[in-house]
């Protein structure tokens, strides 16, 4: 019997639903994938036009949700260990204009994942991150990263992202934690 990867995503994330479908056949007990961000969080607009409530929804709520997801995963995995994968947009590396609150949350979530990797490693829980192009995760926000170099080998597909996640949930990769894998076809190429 297959125990699929558990994919946790905000309710409005069509990417999360698609990733869940793409991973449905993968037998990976003890693995949780968290997708950071959705259409609402990645609403494009200047920072100074935000209301405090919009700031909270697009920055702080996204981070609180990431914390809640990591804590739930820790509770689920801690008896036997396991693997957690954060999926987030590459926009956090170069930054993105008019997407300040969301990118704030994304980079916070990445640092949170690395901290979780450090704290939970001794319990056998590995935490890694897969970064994907913003337009794949939130198509409506694609214009915010239009300044990026074109991908050297072409834009990645959902299947490429799923393959990267599968690599991280593979128990034979026991020595990998706190890592970030950029799956963007060779656009950012950083760090």
């Amino acid at each position, binding site marked *: 019997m297959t125990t699929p990867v558990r994919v946790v995503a905000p309710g409005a994330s069509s990417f999360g639903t698609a990733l869940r479908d793409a991973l449905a056949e993968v037998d990976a007990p003890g693995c949780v994938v968290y997708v950071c961000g959705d259409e609402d969080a990645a609403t494009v607009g200047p920072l100074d036009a935000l209301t405090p409530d919009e700031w909270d929804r697009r920055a702080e709520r996204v981070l609180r949700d990431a*914390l809640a997801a990591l804590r739930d995963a820790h509770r689920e995995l801690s008896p036997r260990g396991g693997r957690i994968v954060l999926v987030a947009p590459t926009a956090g590396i170069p930054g993105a*204009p008019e997407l300040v609150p969301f990118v*704030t949350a994304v980079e916070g979530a990445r640092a*949170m994942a690395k901290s979780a990797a*450090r704290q939970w490693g001794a319990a056998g829980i590995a935490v890694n991150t897969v970064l994907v192009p913003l337009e794949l995760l939130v198509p409506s926000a694609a214009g915010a990263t239009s300044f990026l170099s074109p991908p050297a080998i072409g834009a990645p597909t959902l299947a490429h992202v799923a393959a990267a996640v599968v690599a991280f949930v593979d128990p034979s990769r026991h020595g990998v934690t706190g890592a970030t894998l950029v799956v963007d076809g060779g656009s950012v190429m950083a760090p």
Partner: protein
Amino acid sequence: MSAVDLSGRTVLVTGGGAGVGRGIALACGAAGAHVVVASRRENGVEVVDEIVTRRGAASWSQCDVTDRESVAATVAHAVARTGALHAVVHNATSNQSSVPHRLEDVSGELWEQHSSVSLRGAYHCAVAALAALRVSGGTLLVMTSPAGIEGSATLPLYATMKGALRGFAKSLAREWAPHGVTVNVVSPLAYSPAMENAVAEDPAMEERLARRVPLGRVGDPEIDVGRGVALLVSADAAFVTGQTLGIDGGHFMSL
């Protein structure tokens, strides 16, 4: 004596009443700026007195960065007092920053203590200061830490906030570049009240830490970090934006 010239410039420093913030305020004052020392507690008055005693110019504005109106009032104070605002240094951080914790045990209260000062405070500073910074072609600085880049085994919330601030600054640097306003990040290693307390409890800690710093010592808040910040808020750094500058004796080189 500072080699950086901040004459005629107004620099606002949040969390300016103690530690690294105090050092930044003193260094900017020594470089000729009018320093608006923004602090929740009245220790900011003592920093103003120190700057004035050294023949610098400074004023205190009581400021709670978690309160949007309080930050707006401090920015208004800076502009009313000096006619302009050239730089905001958001240095304030939660007084829980250096208290070790487990990620799985984080309470809503602890989260709020970190987030309200670091993230919402940065948002409040940015929104309140934009109009004045556009006029002056000024700059916004936020403070980070290696923990924000590589995570932390003991301070995961602190790491989260410091990582988030780098995303905030890089994005805002792109967004505000058309306005002629720069945004940068500083990652300091210097004595703070929290570090001094920790060293007092564990004197060997200072030597352990110094061994990990290529330059062999922990930085001084004014001479090392403050002067570096003074350079970044000067006109000489007008073409620098979206960058993270480590002022840490080479402690972190993995950027």
